[in-house]
């Protein structure tokens, strides 16, 4: 049995692992990937100590730091269930079951999907969740950006210089996000903003060739070759049923990173901590590890 199992290896999980191992705890990290959302970020200019660093570079630094300590790490493994009985927590994954005295959930967030017909079939076949990655492949094409917040505006701005025509399909009455970005998008001659508009299907044969939308109760088809889905993030918290969550599915924690279940802690973007930032996630991870350490020390277990 481990002293601590950490679920996730983004900024929160990795920082927790470093703190825990330095306290002499016997730990295991179980994660799908390393770096979490930080590995997906573009330029980072607000992580103290680095005036400028890219997401992949910072994620690489985190990983290097973790590996320095020979921490037991199960990569490419997805947690399916967490159960607590007496003083043992069992963590079941797609590969096995592990037990620990304490657990830190640091599983982060993932991009939200549209849940419309055609989305799965055409993923990476014209439909993408990463404008930063794939925008250059749509040079001279007509594309649609789905969403109305900052990430949608950011995608639209990246596409303005590349694509022939950009539709911004927004479900609410008007675009949100930062005023500066919104203005740039609205002023562009190649952008058409469609408010109060819902996406009902993704169309295509081998690749995307259209999108079905609905506004004022009328359905129509726009001919597009690319679709960028930017409708926000959801927490990876489904596998843990018993902990208390807020209306967004984020795990509720107190200032010691305790959940409502003793011995189960949570940290980073999967929690209801205000502000989702790399440096905050890292700090929360360290707090959670120290709380788990204190929990065991006080009970001498």
């Amino acid at each position, binding site marked *: 049995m481990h002293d601590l199992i950490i679920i996730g290896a983004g900024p929160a999980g990795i920082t927790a692992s470093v703190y825990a191992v330095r306290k002499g705890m016997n730990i295991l990290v179980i994660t799908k990937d390393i*770096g979490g959302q930080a*590995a*997906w*970020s*573009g330029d980072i200019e607000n992580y103290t100590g680095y005036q400028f660093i*890219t*997401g*992949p*570079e910072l*994620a*690489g630094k985190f990983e290097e730091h973790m590996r320095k300590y020979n921490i037991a790490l199960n990569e*490419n493994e997805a947690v399916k269930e967490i159960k607590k009985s007496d003083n043992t927590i069992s963590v079941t994954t797609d590969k096995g079951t592990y037990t620990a005295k304490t657990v830190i959930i640091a599983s982060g967030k993932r991009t939200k999907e549209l849940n419309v017909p055609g989305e799965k079939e055409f993923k*990476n*076949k*014209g439909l*993408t969740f*990463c404008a*930063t*990655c*794939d*925008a*250059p*492949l749509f*040079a001279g094409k007509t594309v649609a950006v789905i969403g109305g917040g900052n990430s949608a505006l950011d995608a639209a701005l990246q596409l303005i210089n590349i694509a022939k025509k950009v539709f911004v399909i927004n479900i609410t009455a008007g675009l949100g996000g930062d005023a500066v970005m919104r203005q740039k998008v609205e002023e562009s001659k190649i952008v058409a903003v469609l408010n109060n508009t819902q996406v009902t299907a993704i169309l295509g044969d*081998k*690749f995307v060739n259209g999108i079905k939308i609905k506004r004022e109760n009328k359905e129509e088809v726009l001919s597009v070759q*690319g679709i960028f889905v930017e409708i926000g993030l959801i927490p990876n918290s489904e596998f843990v049923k018993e902990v208390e969550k807020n209306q967004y599915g984020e795990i509720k924690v107190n200032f010691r990173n305790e959940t409502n279940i003793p011995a189960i802690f949570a940290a980073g973007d999967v929690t209801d901590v205000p502000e989702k930032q790399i440096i905050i996630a890292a700090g929360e991870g360290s707090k959670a590890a120290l709380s788990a350490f204190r929990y065991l020390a006080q009970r001498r277990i």
Partner: protein
Amino acid sequence: MDKQVKVYSTPTCPWCMRTKQFLRENNINFQDIDVSSNQAAAEEMVQKSGQMGVPVLDIDGQIIVGFDKEKIKQSLGI
């Protein structure tokens, strides 16, 4: 003999950077093809992989989509 490795990527894509970093760490020589500035290469990538996401690796004709570390390791025998 060393395998021929091509990486189709865009300069802004985080997973492309991770892929290339991984190859460099393992001393694998590769040809870096920027599909954002080379339309013909972009089409070649789409044709080879049947999809439009980067990165795409071509390891002696074997196509790997995304930074799939296990598949890359297997294909390179590392």
